[in-house]
């Protein structure tokens, strides 16, 4: 196998698409701020897919996104506008939360797990609005953040975009490596048959927890970047609807495909912010109908749809 294998090609193409995103996105009706937001959500969704591979559906991933966002924001506000410390603290704090919550929730499976994560997530959200409002700024959000800087350079505009883009590319590279590693095989096996996995001598709990923490690190990075992009933290970051949006993006794009959830994220945000303009107040109705159509006619999401199209095309050409 040479240096130029399929993986390298995939990664290069992906990197090119991401890095040139701002240049062609404008011509599709997009705009500068939205491309950054799409990239951030793509990181979030990508990490979520690492958990979905194991078959565990979390409804509380907003917690890690939000906790990291608040920690980053508080660092920017009270410590320094330098993003390095802020991001590190954001991710570390959020990861600690993930280790604890993961340890508690992963002892349950199926819908019980989903609801437990939901309960934890909503607990954080409600606490941020009420008990901790002195710290979080309550429902007004964390405001008054300085413009984040990196080595004295202001993190605004395309600086933020490329910062996020680099994280996404690294994140995608890592996620791809993870799914192709023995570790990734264990995650896949976990979804397929947990009992069997235990009976080949695997410590299932450890793997589950690792996947949970890994995916929440992605969420934390995304949350942290969100604050660098927005210098503002909304309590909605912690709300269950954020987790719900993440689930919807993943399912629409195609669970377990890595590409799918990212495409789902891009589609959702594009639709919500660009296409919605033509539909005015009926955009949400249109979105609801679209969810249903996709899940009925395209169960594997966009990636599945693409694969089907390709198969169809190949068949036609063969015939």
């Amino acid at each position, binding site marked *: 196998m040479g240096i130029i294998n399929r993986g390298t090609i995939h990664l290069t193409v992906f990197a090119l698409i991401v890095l040139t995103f701002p240049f062609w996105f404008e011509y599709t009706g997009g705009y*500068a701020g939205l491309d950054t937001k799409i990239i951030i959500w793509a990181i979030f969704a990508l990490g979520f897919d690492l958990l979905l591979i194991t078959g565990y559906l979390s409804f509380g991933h907003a917690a890690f996104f939000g906790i990291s966002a608040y920690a980053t924001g508080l660092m920017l506000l009270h410590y320094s506008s330098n993003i390095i410390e802020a991001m590190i603290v954001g991710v570390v704090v959020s990861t600690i939360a993930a280790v604890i919550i993961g340890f508690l929730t992963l002892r349950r499976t199926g819908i019980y797990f989903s609801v437990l994560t939901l309960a934890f997530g909503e607990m954080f959200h409600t606490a941020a609005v009420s008990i901790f409002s002195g710290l979080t700024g309550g*429902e007004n*959000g964390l405001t008054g953040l300085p413009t984040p800087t990196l080595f004295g350079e202001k993190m605004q*505009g395309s600086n*933020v*975009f490329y910062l996020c883009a680099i994280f996404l590319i690294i994140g995608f590279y890592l996620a791809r490596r993870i799914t192709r590693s023995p570790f990734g095989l264990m995650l896949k096996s976990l979804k397929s048959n947990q009992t069997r996995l235990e009976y080949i001598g695997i410590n299932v709990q450890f793997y589950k927890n690792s996947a949970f923490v890994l995916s929440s690190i992605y969420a934390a990075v995304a949350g942290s970047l969100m604050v660098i992009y927005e210098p503002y933290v909304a309590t909605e970051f912690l709300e269950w609807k954020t987790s719900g949006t993440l689930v919807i993006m993943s399912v629409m794009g195609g669970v377990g495909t890595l590409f799918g959830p990212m495409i789902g994220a891009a589609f959702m*945000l594009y639709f919500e912010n660009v296409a919605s303009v033509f539909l005015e107040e009926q955009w949400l109705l249109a979105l609801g109908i679209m969810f249903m159509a996709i899940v009925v006619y395209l169960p594997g999401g966009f990636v599945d749809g693409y694969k089907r199209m390709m198969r169809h095309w190949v068949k036609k050409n063969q015939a």
Partner: protein
Amino acid sequence: MSKKHDKSKGLTRRDVLKISAASAVAASTPMFFVKDAWAQKAIGNFPVNGPTVTYGFNVPLTSIYADEGEDELRAYKLAVKHLNNGGGMVETLQPNALKRNGVLGKKVEYVVGDTQTNPDAARTSARRMIERDKVIMFSGGSSSAIAIAQQYLAQELGVIFMCGLTHSNDTTGKDKRRYGFRHFFNAYMTGKALAPILSKEYGKDRRAFHLTADYTWGHTQYQSMKDFTEKEGWTTVDNIMTPVKTTDFSQFLTPILNSDADVLILNHYGKNMNNSLTNAVEFGFKEMQKNGKNMEIVVPLYSRLMAKGAGQKNIEGVLGTTAWNWTQKDDDPGSKAFVETFEKEYGFPPSQAAQTCYVQTIIYSDAVERAGTFYPPAVIKALEGHEFAGTGPGKTLYRAEDHQCFKDMLVVKGKSPSQLKGKYDLLEIVSKVKREDTVYPVDTFPGELGPYEPA
């Protein structure tokens, strides 16, 4: 994204084209023609090129405040129409620099966004308007969290934000921003205006029990009602914070049944207020006797849409404050012009949110005309400390130090069903509170406005 604001790096192709075109023009134009352009550097979406200028209206189109948002949007559309063709308050504003041919000779256009009553969504939507649609000013909203979130964005990107309905002290207090202006009144002014009327109507020896929505606005509203009623001699028995997501308030009302309070103050807004009031009436508080007095319910912040949502029977006789009511059309020429044109356009009278949004649009445009430029720092200076009349009763002042607006406001109470004159006539004006009675010192609240030129 920094196509506009950060020219040193991250140039996009379009920018490169724009810049080269601009330098070509600059090179071929005598220097004195572009003098102003050199004095006023590019901020936000300034300079405005082309024959039109775009405003952004960011209102809740989905979620619980959608009805209010739609009414705001109606007002905005009407304001744009009046700016371009004359009519409405464009005729009554005093002093008046508007020319009825758009603003600075440019025809006014607008784009619409949905805040979803979610600050994150609101900011994303506002960014779309600013970055893609190149709006020179944006406005709207039905909640303080959203107004504050957008104010910060406005400051960051150098585009003026004219707040819609926002009642929290923070908007022009802790979170005041140079690029944000508020026409609406706030929780502090509600307490200041309402407390004297309460003691006049219900007596000085009253014991109040508060239910407060557990978020920033609720807290400030509770604080100001507590302070001002206690100044009138009232006693505050207790306060219970109610979670925002409560739909049934019975568990909070039971402790009041057992207390010796004779006034119930509901520091709630929107759906919270609709339900807490409905439940309070159901619990019989309106017919109850406590300490030998009739039990009373007070809802500090009122709006017609909210009153409608709570039901006429429930709001009957309940006191509260509101910024403006359409029945004031007989009071002053500004209100008259607005209500009549609005009714003619849409067939029903406007809400207070609509009035605020309409005035904000007109006043911004007037400031641009007076400044003679869209250059945001110049427009801000034209708005700061500006006093005018003809947009409602009395004179209106945009205070320079905190961008809070001071004007007359209303204490109202719900009419009884038998008094109603039509579908939209729900509130009876109890008192017209003069501007002087609502003014408070700037240093009441902390906060900095920030620089004229965004960093």
